[in-house]
């Protein structure tokens, strides 16, 4: 079916779309309203960060886009289709990497490659894809190692390689560097920027790190505190790419954006003392 010009533009500007999304969890202790009236859309190729205090439902938003959760109310769309469940066009990088410990790094990546391209391509081509994904994250030397034999940063790279190997339309990152030390984190952030520039895929990242959000994103979605959290503000990060960490540190506009996020988090939506 031929798409009209208007539809194409819509798809580009609203590649991922959340419409009046509500999420209520029904637990043994009662109901918990996590999200209320969440509305936003993501442009194709855009890098979005979702930031907020812990417990504000940022991960819930990500899991909804991933299709791991279903909204109590409202609709989610990806590339013009309703999100009905998890799918390979929306790859997830989990916070705790979630690699299978009994498989080598290459096998972990291969599991994803096989699933997405298995029916269509030759075995040699599949192996090549796995190899390429491992090389992309700079882990060719550790391809045959098991996850417990490599460092936390390397594990997270394998997680990214596994997600990217699926050639997803949208990459979903759930606090991908949260468990890493500051130096490793900075290093992986720089690498992720490079990879995203090359692949050009759309990305949504959940984070609680203000610097990370400003450095990586095109827009930052700032969420209010839960329960019944929603989107407080959306900040446009209009810094030129490629971005350099060291240069930005002295850039006044970067610092202005950074303080905007900080003001949102610590002035307007400060977390009540627990």
């Amino acid at each position, binding site marked *: 079916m031929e798409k009209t010009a208007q539809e194409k533009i819509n798809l580009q500007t609203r590649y991922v779309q959340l419409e009046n999304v509500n999420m209520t969890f029904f637990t043994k202790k009662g109901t918990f309203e996590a999200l209320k009236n969440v509305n936003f859309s993501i442009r194709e190729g855009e890098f979005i960060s979702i930031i907020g205090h812990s417990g504000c439902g940022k991960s819930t938003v990500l899991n909804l886009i*991933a*299709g*791991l959760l279903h909204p109590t109310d409202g609709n989610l769309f990806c590339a013009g289709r309703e999100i009905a*469940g*998890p*799918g*390979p066009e*929306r*790859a*997830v990088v*989990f916070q*705790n990497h*979630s690699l*299978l*410990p*009994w*498989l080598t790094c290459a096998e972990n990546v291969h*599991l*994803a490659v096989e*699933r997405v391209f298995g029916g269509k391509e030759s075995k040699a081509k599949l192996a090549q894809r796995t190899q390429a994904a491992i090389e992309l994250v700079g882990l060719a030397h550790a391809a045959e190692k*098991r996850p*417990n034999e490599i460092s936390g940063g390397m594990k997270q790279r394998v997680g990214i390689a596994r997600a990217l190997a*699926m050639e997803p339309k949208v990459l979903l990152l759930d606090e991908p560097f949260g468990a890493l030390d500051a130096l490793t984190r900075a290093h992986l952030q720089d690498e992720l920027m490079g990879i995203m520039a090359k692949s050009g895929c759309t990305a949504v990242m959940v984070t609680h790190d203000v610097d990370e959000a400003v450095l990586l994103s095109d827009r930052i979605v700032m969420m209010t505190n839960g329960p019944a959290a929603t989107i407080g503000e959306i900040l446009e990060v209009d810094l030129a790419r490629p971005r350099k960490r060291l240069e930005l540190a002295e850039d006044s506009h970067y610092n202005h954006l950074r303080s905007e996020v900080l003001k949102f988090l610590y002035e307007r939506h400060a977390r009540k003392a627990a």
Partner: protein
Amino acid sequence: MSAVSISKKDIKTIMKSDQTIVKPAAAVTPPVAARPSMLALKSRAFFQWLLPPVFGLLLLVAIWALISYQSPNLPGPLPTWQAATELFSDPFYINDPNDQGIGWNILASLERVALGFGLAALVGIPLGFIIGRFQFISRMAAPVIGILRPVSPLAWLPIGLLVFKAADPAAIWVIFISAIWPMIINTAVGVSKVPQDYMNVAKVLNLSEWKIVTKILFPFVLPYMMTGVRLSIGVAWLVIVAAEMLTGGVGIGFWVWDEWNNLNVEHIIIAIFVVGIVGLLLEVALTSLAKRFSYE
């Protein structure tokens, strides 16, 4: 108490004398000679590892000797040892169906255990997977397992005799029914403990049920399953002796009963050791097998 009342002066003199001893000693002895060689260290570690179990066994034999000294009907270690050397000099003789060497008896018991246990594994492990994977079936199975599991294995023997109308299948049936529970339960527990993270990976990658079982469930559950297998084989070996006492034929349990009827008490004690040692060997073999399969 006197140690508390050491005066400062005493301490000073002690410290002084300490120094006067240490300094020249360190200067005189060359450091190389003071260090024991690698071989000496290793042999020392070996003996430290070996001695406690040897002492334990010696203690057991000593207590046994003491008790047998007190009660003349119980043969002591020495006559038992003599009987054992005689018995094991020809373990594989066959005089008639009811008089065979101890080797044949052990093998017959092991065969029954292998059959009963193998059938139990064949049924129990897949059943455990299904119970662990599906909440509904788990709830269905819970009362059945809850009622049947605590039943004494030998209570199943008459049912086996009734259904199979023969002693040998009945004994295997008893092994089967008593060995199946640990495998079902441990496998099911393992499956239910698969981390949600791994299942999320499966969902995001859209893995097929077959891939979920082979790439995620099976490798994760394997250590749990091996625990179940180990417990099961222990139970099976425990039960076989009792079952064979009742069913007769060839087997270590029957042999014990036969020797009791002959009032050959040395042989009963030998049988106790044989049962214990074979059980230990089974346990060790399965533990090392489990270690090989562990991914950690």
